[in-house]
């Protein structure tokens, strides 16, 4: 399929070929599913909602519930206010969520619907909440959309009601799988620290089979918890791109100090996460976690000769890719191509963190590599053609490059459309790092065996 990708790299200005990102609304929809009993609502044409639901369904293999304003030509000319008011009425009448979380689309943004005004004039049943985020598809990426909806949770819900801050931490997990959110909660619980996580899609998008379909499977951050996040003594935003905006807003709104850390992928980032909690809340790291860390180090040592010097290309969402890059460096691998489709900066958000952080990591490790934000997979493929790698790490869309260049692919990130289980199994924390070690080492060894001549196949590797 990628036979035509030329090796010669030329400047392009007419858009992207094989994107490494998608649009804001899907991120907002995913974040909103991390509120308990919340129904995301897409204010735009019904195609947007259908595409987001299909895409999320393929990744999570779970029913994705969301409603749409079903724009028609009339709505696009005269504004979507009427559609949204009808939608608000119907959503509560039919689906009865506690919260309706509206996100916009490129269409409703371009025609300029003023969502807060429309919400104000809509009939909302007593005790029910409507929140909204502006998520124009022509800015940022799905990660930006996730960040914007998380911000909306703060702006609509968080309140500082107590005189003194409570000894509890807000954790904003970022655009990660429910399995990762569970793992982060487990780590904080093991540290014996009270926490509020939002959004939290565990229990929503990894819900068990019960023989029943429920609109709201019971997981997710409770509204009262998000309210109470204004009373916490600290917010830890995991991942600058997906989480830090909400943390900073919470700092401005409710005076809760914000700290942005890396998504805890790999040993260093997990250490930083736990040591931050240890320092801020004066807790000992329990032996159980020391043990996990020790096991991870043990595994890294056991298998380190397989990793050393191996060249790897990594692509995906910026927060995830930053963590992965740091971790493969600690395994002795050489991440020579690192790319995200998400643009470097967003309006009022972090600027160029991705390129800066990765470049620094590579410089420190003495590795010359290519780094790019707002890139696409066509370009990544060209890089790989010019400087081949032993391994590709990224989402499902990496499979075309992997096939064209005959390199193994380790599937990490969003979306993964062609394998199961990934949304249950964490990549964060020490346990997650062990899983990454397993996936990477298996991929490299499977490839070595596949390519080995009969006489070179070894029993013990």
């Amino acid at each position, binding site marked *: 399929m990628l036979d035509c990708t030329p090796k010669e790299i030329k400047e392009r200005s007419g858009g992207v070929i094989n994107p490494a990102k998608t649009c804001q609304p899907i991120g907002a929809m995913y974040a909103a599913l991390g509120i308990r009993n919340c129904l995301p609502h897409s204010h735009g044409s019904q195609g947007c909602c259908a*595409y987001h639901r299909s895409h999320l369904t393929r990744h999570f293999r779970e029913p994705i519930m969301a409603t749409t304003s079903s724009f028609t*030509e009339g709505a696009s000319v005269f504004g979507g206010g009427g559609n949204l008011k009808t939608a608000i009425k119907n959503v509560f009448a039919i689906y009865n969520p506690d919260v309706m979380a509206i996100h916009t689309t490129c269409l409703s943004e371009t025609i300029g619907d003023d969502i807060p005004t429309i919400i104000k004039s809509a009939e909302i049943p007593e005790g029910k909440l409507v929140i909204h985020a502006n998520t124009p598809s022509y800015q940022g990426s799905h990660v930006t959309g996730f960040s914007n909806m998380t911000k909306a949770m703060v702006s609509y819900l968080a309140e500082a009601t107590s005189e003194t801050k409570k000894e509890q931490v807000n954790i904003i997990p970022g655009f990660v799988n429910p399995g990762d959110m569970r793992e982060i909660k487990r780590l904080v619980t093991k540290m014996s620290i009270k926490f509020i996580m939002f959004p939290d899609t565990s229990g929503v998008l990894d819900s068990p089979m019960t023989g029943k379909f429920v609109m709201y499977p019971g997981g997710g951050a409770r509204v009262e918890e998000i309210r109470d996040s204004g009373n916490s003594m600290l917010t830890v935003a995991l991942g600058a791109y997906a989480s830090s905006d909400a943390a900073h807003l919470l700092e401005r709104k409710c005076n809760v100090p914000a700290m942005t850390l890396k998504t805890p992928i790999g040993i260093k980032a997990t250490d930083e996460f736990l040591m931050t909690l240890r320092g801020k809340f004066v807790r000992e790291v329990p032996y159980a976690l020391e043990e996990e860390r020790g096991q991870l180090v043990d595994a890294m040592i056991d298998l380190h000769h397989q990793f050393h010097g191996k060249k790897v290309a990594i692509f995906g969402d910026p927060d995830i890719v930053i963590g992965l890059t740091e971790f493969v460096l600690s395994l002795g691998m050489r991440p020579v191509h690192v790319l995200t489709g998400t643009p470097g900066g967003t309006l009022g958000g972090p600027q160029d963190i991705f390129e800066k952080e990765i470049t620094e990591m590579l410089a420190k490790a003495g590795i010359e590599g290519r780094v790019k934000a707002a890139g696409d997979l066509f370009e990544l493929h060209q890089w790989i053609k010019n400087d081949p790698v032993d391994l590709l790490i990224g989402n499902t869309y990496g499979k075309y490059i992997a096939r064209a260049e005959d390199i193994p692919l380790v599937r990490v990130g969003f979306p993964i459309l062609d394998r199961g289980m990934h949304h249950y199994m964490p990549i964060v924390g020490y346990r997650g790092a062990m899983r990454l070690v397993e996936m990477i080492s298996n991929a490299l060894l499977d490839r070595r065996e596949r390519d080995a001549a009969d006489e070179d196949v070894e029993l013990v590797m």
Partner: protein
Amino acid sequence: MERCDDMSTVNLLKDQLVEERKSFIVVKGRQKNQLKCEADSIAGCVSQRACVYCGARVVLNPVTDAIHLVHGPIGCASYTWDIRGSLSSGSELYRNSFSTDLKENDVIFGSEKKLARAIDELVEKYNAGLVFVYSTCVVGVIGDDLEAVCRAAAKKHGIEVIPVQSSGFIGNKSAGYRAACDALLRLIELPAGKLPGRTAGSGGRSVNYLGDFNLAGEAWIITNYLKSMGVDVNVVFTGDATHQSLKKAATASLNIMQCAGSMAYLARRMEELYGIPYLKVSFLGLEDTSASLRKIAAAFKDPEMMRRAEELIARETAGVRPVIEQYREKLRGKKAAIYVGGGFKAISLVKQFREIGIDVVMVGTQTGREEEYQTLHDIADDGTVILDDANPSELEKFMLEKGAHLLVGGVKERPLAYKLGVAFIDHNHDRKHPLSGFVGAINFAREVYSTVCSPVWKYTRGMGGVLHAQE
């Protein structure tokens, strides 16, 4: 699961559904009123429907050697990147994702120049003779002159650059089918000299096959059947089609049309413009496949062709029947629910389920048309729930009420069925085996069997109870 009587279903309609939705649902044998369809979805519903762009993209995407350039912000291109299993015998260009990736400035100041640059860059790289430029919502609102940009680019590069008017808000998926057909019509060349003899059988033996997207290679299977009857397939709309093959569409003497929902407009227009008559066919299930092959042979009024058709049907059926019978034994008494995109597919599925001994208890579509619903009503058993543009809660209610063991649907319906402990087969983009023709009938039965009779369902119910009982 308890099977509820039909009155309770009707009562359920009264109790639990939003008022506006009631007219979109009927229970056969219980209501006199006509089912409402072909209407816009209600704002605030969890509709399973998609948009104009989706419809257009679905129809055009299988054109293998075209550059499919999505003009808009990134999402529309991302979500449609290689999601359909349309197979190609040649170029794989169509499996890439091309987007103008519009940014805020493009939306404010217009994006015509960026579009022109995108076309230039892509044509230079991929050396394609055909570019489809899909308009998306934003482009429709900011008013880029797509026609002008495409015309200029076509002239500049000496290729065809066809705009597809598929802004999401201008209608539903059906409007997208029409936009795609309009784009296809622009490609078709008037054959030199006089038009071929336009009554089937009086001239050539070639047909166009409309409404097969070659999912899992289905169009190839049908093409081979037709070949063995002495009929050449001129071009398939649009499975495994190419720029050049589409251009000569007007040289065929008959159009056979499977997916009427997407292709009826094209068939009608080709009849008006080129005098090519069309036949409705369906290659889903033994009954429809055999009937369709006979119908085609009859249209050519050729006894030899008829003989070869009968020979083919006899041979294939003899191979397939015993296998189907085996599955029929195993599946006896099972009940199915159907929720698919178009009406034609739903109709064929009802018949196909009957062939394997399964009763259909619920059938619905996203975009079925009135006459299709009439047919569904005619062939359905009493008590079958028939519904248009259903939402997940409705699907759930009726599947449970009716005790369905299996749901046929698309990507969004799969996990819903699984959560209910109901088996599932994909009859949409994600199908992995051909479900058309005689071989498809076996695949269909096998797939139904492998999901309905999987041991995994044994573990779904009464978890707490079972475990406690063992204590």
